[in-house]
C-alpha cells in the first residue's frame, strides 16, 4: 500500500468528495423541500430560486460523479498495482527458490498461491479504502442529523448500533460454516482431479459409475453445507434489509411529532429520511469487508510463507569469482554428502573425471545417481564435501560462467511453450564453437539458425524438426504441436548441446529415444570429446563410456571400466542377468531361424 501512496491519496480525495456530495445532496434535497416545494404549494416560486436549485443539484451530481470515478479508478489502480507487485515478488521467488524447497510443494498449490491466494489477499484493499470513506460518511451524516435535531440523531445512532450488532453476529456465526464450504469445495476438486487423472484406469476397470457416486457424495456434502450457510443468510439478510425500514418508521413517527411542535421543518424530515437511507449502505460494505477479512489474512499468510523462504542457498562469494578456460573441464568430487528430507542420499561420494572423458553412472534405483548430477549442476544443496571444476571449487566459479559451462538434460524433457528455436537457445547467444561451422555472430539470424540446426543434428532431431510446419519456428509446449517423448528428449538434448558445454550431464536423457537413433546420438557426442557424465541403462551406452562409476545406497562401490566391473558378480547381476537370459534364448532362436530359412 505504501508503494502507491499517491494513488491512495487521490482515491481518498475521491472518497471524501463522494461523502461531501452525498451528504450535501441529501441536505440540499431538504432545502429544496422547504424553500421550493413547500413554497410552491402556496403558488409562488420565483424562477431565480428554482434555477438556483436545479443548478446546484446538477453541480452536486457532476461533482459526485467525478468523485466516484476518482475513487474507483485510483483505488482500482492502487489495488491492481499492489497485486501486480506482490505477484511479481512471488513469481520471482519461484524462479529463485532452491529446487529442494520447490519440490516439497505441489504444483497445484504453488499455482493457487500465485492466483487465487493473491487475489484474495489483495481483495481486502478494495473495501479497506472504501470503508474509510464509509466511516467519513457515517460521521458527517450523524453531524447533519445532530444539526437537524438531537433526537433524530439518537434514533440514527441506535439504528446504526442495532444494525452493526446484527451484522457482526451474522458474520461471526457464518464464518466457520463458510470456511467449511471452502473445504468441501476443495474435496470435490480433489475427487474430480483424481478421477480424470486416472481416466484410463477408470475406463478399463469400468468404474465410471463408482466414480460418479464418489463425486456425488462429495458434491452432496458440499450442497448440504451450502444450504446450511444459505439458511443463515436467509435469516439475516431480510433482517439487515428490514432494520433500516423499521428505523425510518420510527423516524417518521417521531419526526411528524417534531414537525408539529415546530422543532423541525418538513424539509428537515426529508433530509433525515434520506440520510437514514444512506446509513444502511456503509454497514453493508463494512459487512462485506469484515466477512472477507479473515480469508484475506489466511491467503496473505500463505503467500508470506513463500516470500519468507530464503531465495538461494548461501553462496560463499568471498573469493573473487573465478573464470574457467574454454576447454573441456575436469571434475573432481570429494566426499560429497547430500541429505534430502531427513535421509542421506549421497554418503561420501568421491571420484574424478578427466577432461573429455565419458563416465557412466550405474546403480539400482535410489542409489543417488540423479542426485549426484543435480548436486554438480547446483540444483540442490550439498551438506559437505567438495565439487571442483578444473581444480576450482564450484561455488567460487562465477555463476554465469558455470551456467554456460555445464549443461544437463533430464529424462523428463521439459519444453517451454514457444518455438523449437527458443527452446534450444533459451536466449543464450554465445555458443562456444566446437566445430568450424559454428559462429559466434548471434545477431545474424542465419548464423544463429545454423547453430541451432547443428545442435539439432547432433541430437538427431534435425530430421523431424525439418518436417514440422514452420520448422525452427514451430510452436511446441502446452498449446503447440505435441511431440513424442523421444522427440522432446532430443530437443532438450539439442538445448544442452547448443551452448557448447564443457561438462555435459545426461540423466537418462535418451530413455524414450529409439535404440538405433540413440546410438547415432552417442556416436556424434563422442566426436565432440566433451567431458560427459551420464546415467544410462542400455548396454551399448555402458559399453561406450570410458569408465563406469558404480553406485549403491549413495556410495561409490567401484570406479572402473565396464569390462573390469563385469568381473564383479553384483554388478553383473545388476546389468546383465535379465539380458543374459534373453541372449541364451536368442541363440536358440537364431538357430531355429537358420533352420527355418533353410527349410524354405
Amino acid at each position: 500500500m505504501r508503494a502507491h501512496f499517491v494513488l491512495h491519496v487521490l482515491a481518498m480525495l475521491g472518497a471524501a468528495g463522494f461523502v461531501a456530495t452525498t451528504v450535501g445532496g441529501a441536505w440540499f434535497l431538504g432545502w429544496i423541500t422547504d424553500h421550493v416545494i413547500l413554497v410552491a404549494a402556496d403558488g409562488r416560486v420565483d424562477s431565480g430560486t428554482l434555477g438556483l436549485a436545479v443548478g446546484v443539484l446538477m453541480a452536486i451530481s457532476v461533482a459526485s460523479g467525478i468523485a466516484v470515478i476518482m475513487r474507483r479508478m485510483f483505488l482500482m489502480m492502487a489495488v491492481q498495482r499492489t497485486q501486480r507487485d506482490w505477484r511479481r515478488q512471488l513469481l520471482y521467488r519461484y524462479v529463485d527458490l532452491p529446487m529442494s524447497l520447490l519440490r516439497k510443494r505441489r504444483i497445484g498449490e504453488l499455482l493457487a498461491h500465485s492466483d487465487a491466494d493473491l487475489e484474495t489477499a489483495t481483495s481486502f484493499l478494495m473495501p479497506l479504502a472504501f470503508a474509510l470513506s464509509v466511516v467519513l460518511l457515517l460521521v458527517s451524516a450523524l453531524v447533519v442529523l445532530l444539526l437537524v435535531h438531537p433526537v433524530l440523531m439518537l434514533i440514527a445512532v441506535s439504528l446504526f448500533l442495532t444494525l452493526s450488532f446484527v451484522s457482526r453476529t451474522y458474520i461471526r456465526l457464518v464464518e466457520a460454516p463458510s470456511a467449511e464450504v471452502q473445504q468441501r469445495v476443495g474435496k470435490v476438486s480433489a475427487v474430480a482431479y483424481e478421477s480424470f487423472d486416472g481416466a484410463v484406469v477408470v475406463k478399463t476397470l469400468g468404474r465410471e459409475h463408482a466414480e460418479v457416486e464418489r463425486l456425488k457424495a462429495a458434491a452432496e456434502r458440499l450442497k448440504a453445507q451450502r444450504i446450511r450457510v444459505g439458511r443463515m443468510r436467509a435469516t439475516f439478510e431480510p433482517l439487515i434489509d428490514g432494520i433500516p425500514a423499521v428505523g425510518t418508521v420510527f423516524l417518521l413517527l417521531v419526526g411528524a411529532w417534531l414537525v408539529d411542535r415546530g422543532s423541525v421543518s418538513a424539509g428537515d424530515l426529508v433530509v433525515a429520511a434520506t440520510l437514514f437511507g444512506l446509513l444502511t449502505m456503509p454497514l453493508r460494505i463494512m459487512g462485506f469487508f469484515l466477512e472477507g477479512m479473515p480469508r484475506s489474512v489466511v491467503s496473505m499468510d500463505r503467500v508470506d510463507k513463500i516470500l519468507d523462504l530464503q531465495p538461494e542457498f548461501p553462496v560463499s562469494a568471498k573469493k573473487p569469482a573465478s573464470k574457467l578456460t574454454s576447454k573441456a573441464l575436469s571434475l573432481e568430487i570429494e566426499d560429497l554428502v547430500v541429505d534430502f528430507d531427513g535421509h542421506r542420499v549421497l554418503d561420501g561420494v568421491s571420484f574424478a573425471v578427466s577432461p573429455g572423458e565419458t563416465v557412466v553412472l550405474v546403480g539400482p534405483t535410489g542409489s543417488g545417481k540423479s542426485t549426484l548430477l543435480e548436486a554438480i549442476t547446483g540444483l540442490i544443496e550439498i551438506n559437505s564435501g567438495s565439487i571442483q571444476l578444473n581444480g576450482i571449487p564450484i561455488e567460487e566459479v562465477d555463476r554465469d560462467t558455470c551456467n554456460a559451462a555445464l549443461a544437463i538434460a533430464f529424462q523428463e524433457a521439459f519444453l517451454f511453450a514457444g518455438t523449437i528455436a527458443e527452446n534450444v537457445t533459451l536466449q543464450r547467444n554465445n555458443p562456444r564453437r566446437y566445430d568450424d561451422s559454428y559462429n559466434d555472430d548471434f545477431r545474424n539470424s542465419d548464423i544463429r539458425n545454423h547453430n541451432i540446426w547443428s545442435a539439432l543434428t547432433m541430437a538427431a532431431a534435425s530430421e523431424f524438426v525439418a518436417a514440422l510446419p514452420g520448422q525452427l519456428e514451430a510452436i511446441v509446449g502446452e498449446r503447440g504441436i505435441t511431440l513424442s517423448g523421444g522427440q522432446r528428449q532430443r530437443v532438450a538434448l539439442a538445448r544442452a548441446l547448443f551452448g557448447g558445454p564443457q561438462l555435459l550431464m545426461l540423466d537418462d536423457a535418451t530413455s524414450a529415444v529409439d535404440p538405433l537413433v540413440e546410438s547415432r546420438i552417442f556416436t556424434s557426442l563422442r566426436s565432440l570429446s566433451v567431458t560427459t557424465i551420464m546415467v544410462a541403462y542400455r548396454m551399448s551406452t555402458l559399453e561406450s563410456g570410458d569408465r563406469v562409476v558404480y553406485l549403491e545406497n549413495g556410495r561409490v562401490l567401484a570406479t572402473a571400466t565396464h569390462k573390469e566391473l563385469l568381473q564383479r558378480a553384483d554388478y553383473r547381476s545388476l546389468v546383465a542377468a535379465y539380458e543374459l537370459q534373453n541372449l541364451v534364448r536368442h541363440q536358440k532362436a537364431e538357430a531355429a531361424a537358420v533352420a527355418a530359412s533353410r527349410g524354405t
Partner: protein
Amino acid sequence: MKPASQTTSQTQSKQNTAKQNNIDRTPSHLFRTMRRGLIVSPELRREFGVTMVMAVFSAVARLVIPILTQLVLDHGVISEEGYKPGLVLGLSLSALFVVVVVAAVNRGVYIRLVTAAESVLLDLRVRTFEHIHRLSLTSHIRERRGVLVSRVTSDVETLATFIQRGAILWVVNPVIILGSFAVMGFYSWQLTLIVIAAYILLVPFLRWMQHRQFLSQTRVRDAVADTLASTGEVVTGAAVIRSYGYTEPIRRRLDQMLDNQYKARIDAHVWFSIMMPVVELLSSLVLSGVIVVGIWQLSALELKIGELVAFIFLLRLMLGPITELGEIFQQTYTALAGWWKILQVLDLPVEIDDIEPHQALTLPEGSLPVEIRGVGFTYDTVFRDDADCSSGFSSSVKVLEDINIRIEADANVAVVGETGSGKTTFARLVARLIEPTEGVVKIGGLDLRLVARESHRRLIHMVPQDGFLFDTTVEENIRFGRGGASSEDVAAAIDALSLRDWVDGLPDGVQTQVGERGSQLSIGERQFVALARAQIADPRLLILDEATSAIDHETEQTLMEALAFLAKGRTSITIAHRLSTAEWADLVLVFHDGRIVETGNHVELLSTGGIYAQLYESWVSDARSFL
C-alpha cells in the same frame, strides 16, 4: 505431421471456423446460454415462479417507506386538519407490520431458492462429471485434464456464487424498478412519463457498456490464463531454468505477462468505474426535471406536496437497484461464461455410445478370439484452448490405417514398434477405450460395438502403462479390479502372482496407503498393483501395456514372472517394450507408421529380415557386447 493427415486437417479447420462463428462473443450468445441451460436444467424454470413471489415481496418492502413518507406528510402533518397523531401511529404500525411480514416471507422463499439452486448445481455437476467420463480417451489428453476438472469445479462455483447474489438481484431489482414506476405513475403519470423517457436513453448506453465489459472481461481471463501458464512453466521447468541460468528471460516473460494482466484489468475497470457516475448523472438530470416540472405544474397535475416528495424519494430509491444491476454485470458474465463452458462439455458427443440394453449382446464364456477388419483411427485434436472451446487450432492425425488381423483364442500376442507407430491406439481399440473411425473390431465373433458394456468390462481387461492408482490402500486398489471382491480374493490374487513377499515388505502390508497417483510406491510396484487388479478381474482377454521406464532388476524379475502367469490360459495382447516379451509370444505384430507391416512369430520375423529383425539386431548387439 504425416502428409496423409494434412488434407483432413484442412477440412477440419474449416469446420472449426464454422463452429467459431456459432459461438461468437456477442450478447446474443447469453440468451443462447440461458435457453440451453434451461433445457439442461428444467427445474430452473419451475423455480422461477417462487423467485418472482420473492421479488414482489422485496419490492413491496422497499416501496413501503416512500409511500409511508407521503401518507404521513400529506395526511398526518401538513393536511388541513394539522397534526393527526392517531393516523401517524396507525400508518407507522401497519408499515412496521408489512416490513416484518415481508422479512419473514423472504426468509422462507430464500431458503427454498437456495435449496433448489443447490440441487440444480449438484445435478449439473454430477451430470457433467459423468459425461466427461463417458467421453472417449481422445478427449482426455493431458493438456485438457485441468480444463475438464475446472468444468466440474470452478465453473460450477462461479454459477453458485452468482446464484447466491447476482441471480436474485436480476429478478428482484427489475421488479423493484417496475414497482417504483407503478407507484410513481399512481402519483403522477405525466412526471412518470418524463422519467421513463429519460431512462430509455440509458438502455443503449447500458447495452454498449455490457458489450465493452464482456470484451474486456474476456481479455482479463485470457491474460490470467497466460500468467498461470507461465507460472506453471516456472515451477515445472524449474530444473531447466536453474541449470541453464534462464532466470532473466523468464523474469522478463513474467513481467510482460503481469503487465498484460494489469492493463487488461485496468481497462475492464474503466468501464466499470464510469457506469455508476453516468447513471447517477442522468438521474440527477431527471430529478431536476421532475422538480422543475412538478413545481411549475403542481396545481395542473393535482399533485400534493407529500406526493411530490414521495416521487422524488422513489426516484432516488430506483437508483440503487439500477446501479446494483450495473455492478453485477461482471459477476453475471463470469457465471454465464462458466455455464456456457459446462453446457459445451455436455454437448460434446460421446464417441462411444452404449448400445440399447435389450439389443446388447453378451460375450461368450470361455476364451476369446479377436478379429480386426479394415480398422483405421483418426485422431482429432479439437478444443485445445482452455479459455473457451471455440478457439484454438485443430488438426487430425491418422494414427492407424487398414489394420487386418486375426488373433486366435488363448494366443499370446506381442505388439512391437517405435513410439508413435500406433501400438497403444491399437490396444485401446481392442479394449474399446476408443472406437475405430473405420472398420470393425470383433471379439468372440461379435462386433465389439454391439456388446453390452458390463460384458466387455468383465471379460476384457486392460492394464495401462502408467499404472495409475487411487489415493487409498493397496488392497482397495486391487479390489477395484472386480466389484465385490473380498479381502481373501485380494490375498489370493497377490499369492497367485507371487507378490506376497513384496506386500509383506510394505509398511502396512495390503493396508499401505499408496498416496496421490500411487506416489508412495515405485513405478514397478504400481505395476504390481495393476497386475493384481488384472488377476482379480480374471478376464478372458488381457491387454497389457508394458511400462517403458527403467525398473530395477529385482522388481523387473518379479514383474516378468507375474506377467507370464497372467497371460497363461487366456488371450493376451501385450504392447512390448522389451523384445524378450516378443520372443515368447505366439504372434508378433510389428507396427510402423500406423500400419501392421510384419506379422509372425519371433523366429519367422527374424528370418524375413525386416523391421523386427533390425530392432532385434540392435538389441542383441547390446546384449552380446558384455559377454
